[in-house]
């Protein structure tokens, strides 16, 4: 399905209307996706005998955010999540939160539909090149069972598949303490959803599996996530004003971390040949390849008219010692007053260091250097911070919302992930829209 992207070549003819449209939408970036979309979803010629009452079979829609953010410090860079290469400092930047998404929907039959979605945002490559976030077919086998195949948003946590649709939630961005550590947006694979009424509510179960196709920037290098198998599932129960969801998901790494971690592993391996087998063991413990990371979470939403409260707790466990296991949680509460919905949020994330010993004596200076490198690598993902968020959403006209938010991030001195900080205030303004 995705091989098409490589097969369909953009025409060199400058007057191609699809290309021109794409140019204006995505700042002269790859026209391939637009052509691909057009080819796949070009509406069929109107059938003469088509029943006039069928809902529209083809639909083009979109979402976007124009957002500005700044902090009170030039020492750290504030990013929205791990997929961003550069972060915000003291001067206003539109990079972190601005994005534009375009979605094509085509209903082939009552039970078969196709969706494709491309998003242009400031991503891992430090540019706005549009990415195909979704391209799937959904088949509703029965009212209880539907199957999707293709590329779709990851549901490692409740709401994680709509992180980019700012208009759909209250805050400027999803809580960074909680969602910021997730470097991936989509999975290439399939999912199965079973839905059934139960008691006064509706029970939904979903299982998904597939492979990642993304990468995460680490300083000037990348951690390649491509081909990492992903699998997971959730149980969701919605009744009255309540919604509950329990999720478990996992991914297996197929690639190693870039330098300096990869060079450290080499050094450990070399040292082991000098008669210190524990060093090779340590190199193995901080290796990422073929280790699994597991993500567990439980979330609840209470929604009663003007009042909405949502909360989530998560636990992340990594087999590899290079990543610290962590626990995170957040709660956001908002109350609508006319067109304004003020909200308050609190989030926290804390990880626990793992101990790995190289067995190399510090007395020998080159070994001491390796040991220091190892200690640094193990502390690399230590996080111990919390955030208070305060803001308001203004629904000033249909399909548009203006938001402002202040985040007070407070971290322990040893907290270095996603950014080293002890005290950072973040100011945000955003205009969210759908069309």
């Amino acid at each position, binding site marked *: 399905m995705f091989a098409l992207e490589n097969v369909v070549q953009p025409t060199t003819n400058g007057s191609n209307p699809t290309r021109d449209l794409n140019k204006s939408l995505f700042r002269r970036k790859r026209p391939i996706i637009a052509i691909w979309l057009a080819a796949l979803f070009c509406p069929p010629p109107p059938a003469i005998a088509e029943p006039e*009452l069928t809902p529209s079979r083809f639909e083009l*829609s979109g979402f976007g955010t124009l957002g500005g953010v700044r902090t009170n410090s030039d020492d750290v860079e504030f990013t929205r999540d791990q997929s961003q290469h550069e972060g915000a400092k003291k001067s206003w930047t539109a990079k972190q939160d601005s994005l534009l998404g375009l979605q094509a929907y085509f209903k082939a039959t009552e039970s078969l539909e196709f969706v494709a979605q491309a998003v242009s945002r400031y991503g891992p490559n430090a540019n706005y090149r549009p990415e195909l976030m979704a391209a799937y077919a959904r088949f509703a086998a029965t009212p209880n069972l539907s199957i999707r195949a293709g590329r779709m948003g990851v549901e490692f946590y409740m709401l994680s598949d709509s992180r980019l649709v700012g*208009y*759909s939630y209250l805050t400027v961005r999803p809580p960074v303490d909680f969602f910021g550590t997730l470097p991936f947006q989509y999975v290439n694979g399939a999912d199965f959803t079973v839905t059934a009424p139960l008691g006064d509510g509706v029970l939904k179960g979903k299982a998904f599996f597939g492979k990642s196709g993304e990468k995460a920037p680490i300083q000037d290098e990348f951690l390649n996530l491509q081909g990492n198998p992903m699998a997971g599932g959730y149980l969701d129960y919605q009744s*009255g004003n309540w919604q509950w969801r329990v999720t478990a998901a996992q991914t297996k790494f197929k690639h190693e971390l870039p330098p300096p971690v990869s060079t450290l592993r080499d050094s450990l391996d070399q040292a082991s040949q000098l008669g210190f087998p524990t060093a090779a063991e340590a190199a193995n413990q901080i290796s990422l390849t073929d280790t699994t990371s597991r993500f567990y979470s439980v979330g609840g939403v209470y929604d009663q*008219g*003007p009042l909405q409260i949502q909360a989530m707790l998560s636990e992340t466990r990594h087999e590899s010692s290079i990543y610290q296991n962590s626990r995170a949680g957040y709660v956001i509460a908002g109350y609508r007053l006319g067109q304004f919905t003020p909200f308050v949020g609190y989030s926290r994330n804390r990880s626990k260091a793992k101990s790995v010993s190289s067995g190399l004596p510090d007395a020998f200076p080159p070994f001491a250097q390796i040991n220091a490198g190892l200690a640094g690598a193990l502390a690399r993902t230590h996080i111990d911070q919390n955030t208070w968020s305060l803001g308001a959403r203004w629904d000033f006209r249909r399909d548009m919302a203006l938001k402002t938010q202040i985040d007070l991030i407070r971290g322990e001195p040893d907290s270095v992930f996603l950014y080293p900080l002890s005290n950072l205030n973040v100011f945000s303004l955003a205009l969210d829209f*759908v069309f």
Partner: protein
Amino acid sequence: MGKNRLFLAVLLAIWPAAAVWADLVVVTSPKSGIERMTREEVVYVFMGRWRQLPSGIPAQPIDSPLDSAERAQFYRQLVNKEPSDIRAYWARLVFSGGARPPVSAQSREEQMRLLASQPGAVAYMERSVVDSRVRIVFEFSASAP
């Protein structure tokens, strides 16, 4: 009576945008195979959580025109939500591959045609325009909020 008047006065005071509550009812085609729906069932069908009528027919909810007072009032009465809340709700589902929003009828005629042609169609309208082509399955006036 006095109670109702007080209720209306309070309502007008806290909610100046809507001058009068229309008497909305939820209707289906007479071929739907159902006589009544509960408030929960109406919520599930219109919010896309579970779209099957108790008779087993797939439910197809029909919204009144976008920006119509009827549509705004329906969701205020059903889930106590403003039109923008409902738009935000659907934005999340539509862009993450969840349920699709109800079909939007552009006029009363179109709404009636949909109700007549689809046994699973569910719509809402003022009681005064209900005729023999549709069947009332839920009344806000007869149900506690």
